[in-house]
């Protein structure tokens, strides 16, 4: 494989890791976002947390591996993006820490104040994380100001424009919907019935924000319009994404929760694929001068490293998929609270 091909392959593999992360951690972030709205009693809150209890840790590893793979395959992009979005990343880390420990600590005491505090931390951490992922994607679409060495030269305020915030809200709505569809699969009885309302509401919110984000993106990001001439299959991706989105309300209506969840997962994959197409070949777009953009070719590691990494991925990924399969199979079915639950 030539070095150029390896660069593109690694761009695709990072895309796979990102899509895997967004679908898997997406639903458990969503369960966190819905936490104050979905569950009313302490028992329901525990069911919510235990619905993701055995899974969230493995889901988050997709993000950690995405970080490691970006570092190894495209060190220049890793350095530019992570130092450029410094404050956003620090907030993201604090949000992920709060979220992780809130699940672990909440059940350890019965005192209502203790539990209310960790409920809040779980909700706030999940929502902030989902928002920041969207803000990051919004900024990636618009580009940020870079110097000749690829270092960010703007300020935090530049990263909080209306468009990134809109994408942030879109991300929150998408994950909330994804979480509602997931939670429906894991619950039963009254609680499950109440989730139906929440499914419709989050879908409505998602749809409105999806349309707004799409229009805003096409107006604001010229490259997002050009993908249809550059890649003829891009139109196909759009059609599939729209079909997947349209299948969500259909499946909710006909009480096919598994299909609804799968459609939501497919629409997340579709939206991120379009994002990837609009970004390529850039990894970090320079808004001040397109020539300064960090591209897959200017950011990549050497041919040998990309080959070694590919070998690692080829050996490792079947194992990863096998573990993931085993874990999801072991914890299939409705949540049952037991001695070892949160």
């Amino acid at each position: 494989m030539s070095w150029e091909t390896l660069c593109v392959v690694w761009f695709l593999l990072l895309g796979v890791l990102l899509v895997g992360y967004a679908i898997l951690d997406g639903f458990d972030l969503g369960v966190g976002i819905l936490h104050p709205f979905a569950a009313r009693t302490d028992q329901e809150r525990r069911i919510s947390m235990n619905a993701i209890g055995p899974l969230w840790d493995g889901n988050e590893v997709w993000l950690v591996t995405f970080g490691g793979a970006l570092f190894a395959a495209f060190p220049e992009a890793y350095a530019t993006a992570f130092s450029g979005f410094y404050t956003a990343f620090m907030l993201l880390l604090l949000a992920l820490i709060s979220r992780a420990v809130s699940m672990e600590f909440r059940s350890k005491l019965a005192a209502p104040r203790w539990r209310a505090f960790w409920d809040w931390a779980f909700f706030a951490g999940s929502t902030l994380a989902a928002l920041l992922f969207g803000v990051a994607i919004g900024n990636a679409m618009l580009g940020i100001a870079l110097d000749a060495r690829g270092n960010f030269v703007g300020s935090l305020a530049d990263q909080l424009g209306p468009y990134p915030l809109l994408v942030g809200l879109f991300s929150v709505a998408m994950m909330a919907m994804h979480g509602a569809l997931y939670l429906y699969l894991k619950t039963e009885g009254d609680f499950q019935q109440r989730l139906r309302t929440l499914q419709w509401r989050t879908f409505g919110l998602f749809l409105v924000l999806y349309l707004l984000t799409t229009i805003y993106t096409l107006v604001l990001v010229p490259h997002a319009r050009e993908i249809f001439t550059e890649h003829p299959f891009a139109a196909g991706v759009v059609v599939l994404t729209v079909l997947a989105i349209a299948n969500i309300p259909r499946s909710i209506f006909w009480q096919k929760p598994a299909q609804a969840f799968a459609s939501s997962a497919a629409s997340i994959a579709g939206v991120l694929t379009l994002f990837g197409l609009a970004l390529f070949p850039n990894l970090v777009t320079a808004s001040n001068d397109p020539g300064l953009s960090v591209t897959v070719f200017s950011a990549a590691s050497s041919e040998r490293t990309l080959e070694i990494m590919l070998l690692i991925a080829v050996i490792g990924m079947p194992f990863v998929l096998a573990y993931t399969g085993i874990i999801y199979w072991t914890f299939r079915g409705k949540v049952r609270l037991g001695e070892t639950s949160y």
Partner: protein
Amino acid sequence: MDPVFLSRVQFGLTAGFHYIFPPLTIGMSVVLVYLEARFLKSRDPLFEQAARFWTKIFALNFAIGVATGIVLEFQFGTNWATYSRFVGDVFGSALAAEGIFAFFLESGFLAVLVFGWDRVSAGMHFFATLMVSLGGIFSSIWIVVANSWQQTPAGHHIVPMLRDGEQMLVDGAPVLRAEILDFWAMVFNPSTVQRLTHVWLGAFILGGFFIMSISAYYLLRRRHVPFAERSFTGALALATAASLLMLLSGHQQAGAVYDHQPAKLAAFEGHYHSGPAALSLFALPNPEQERLDLNLAVPGGLSFLVTGDFAAPLTGLDRFRPEDRPPVTVPFLSYHLMVALGFFFIGVTLLACLLLWRGKLFQTRWLLWVFVFAVVGPILANETGWIAAEVGRQPWVVYPPLLTGDDGQPLLDAQGRFAYDERLGLRTADAGSSAVSAGEVLGSILGFGAIYLALLAVWLFVLDRKIRHGPDDGTKEPAAGSGVLAAAAARPGHAGSLTEIDTEARP
């Protein structure tokens, strides 16, 4: 303030806090594997109770380890952008391998370990425990490989970075970076194997002492006695063996540091002036006058340990230019504290083994009290070991080779000092992120500081409650001594909820 200095403080804070947990969980996981293997073989319910109890404690420690570990994967990029650009081609692949080979294994099977007791067979549960333990060990391999490569780089070359086929120039100068030549030479760089052994032994000692601490507490309180005696004995075996092996590992390690990073060993030992080196047992470094105050030392001791000859001269800090020398005070003190603690572990575990052999250990209350608090020792030793290793590596973040002549011998300057080939290494001072201001770093330090303090408090609090609750072996906890918070939690109104703590709180 200097953003690089602040970034060092932040890295020290986040890595230091995180590093309480990985050795603890790696060490404990070995004990869990042992307990479950014994249960599988004998079906003795006491082993299952023990495994279930220690799994709960393990899960708590693991959760905090995971939560604080994500920070590290991102921090190279956020705070050390120049470093990341320089080393990414080499260092990044070790981190990515850790994600794919270790983290997925660990986090996946952790779910079965913690939540799967009633969902999978005992055999499958044992397998999951084994996989979690292996995952932790794999993770330590890759992270120590990455760190060792910074200390003793190998398997790479430093080349100008290309952009569109041309050398990339910034301000007219080519941008250099490390690129991999030989993956296995990078993985097995000169210090990997020894440092990895050292890290594992440190983990086993901590895991052993942690379990002994809690078990000794039960023995002193006369609660869960059969359980505590078994746990203590198993953990003692692990901790004793690891402490003794650590003596060997530490000795080899010091020799290897002298071979590859003589300035670092000189900082550890306060060896300012080249010549025969004494072995300090206690001293306070005085960097202004380049001497050790209050020095209690074995003359020629260090020379003997490194070369086998009391009179052999060792390279001192005076053979390095001032700008190439590591600081002495912090590495000296942390290294000596670590070594002293290592001897304490050997002494206290051997004494316990002797008393156990004579059948008196569980009646020797003072020694059990020592074990209750001794767990602080291995935590400190693991931390100070890393502090010594990382501060002793300064002023470099990637160690450069010495400049050598055509005959392969080091070139010396007019004062007879070594010089490094600077272009092939990276100074810590040059490794930061130019896009990040001191204020931003300070803000994030305050954020991490606050949240880690809170985490530490909650961790200790929840740990304390789990310990008071104890294993479910059918014995009742005495009502006294469970504390105000437990009494509050036991208020009748909440007795109906379903948490595990309720089995304790329910009237």
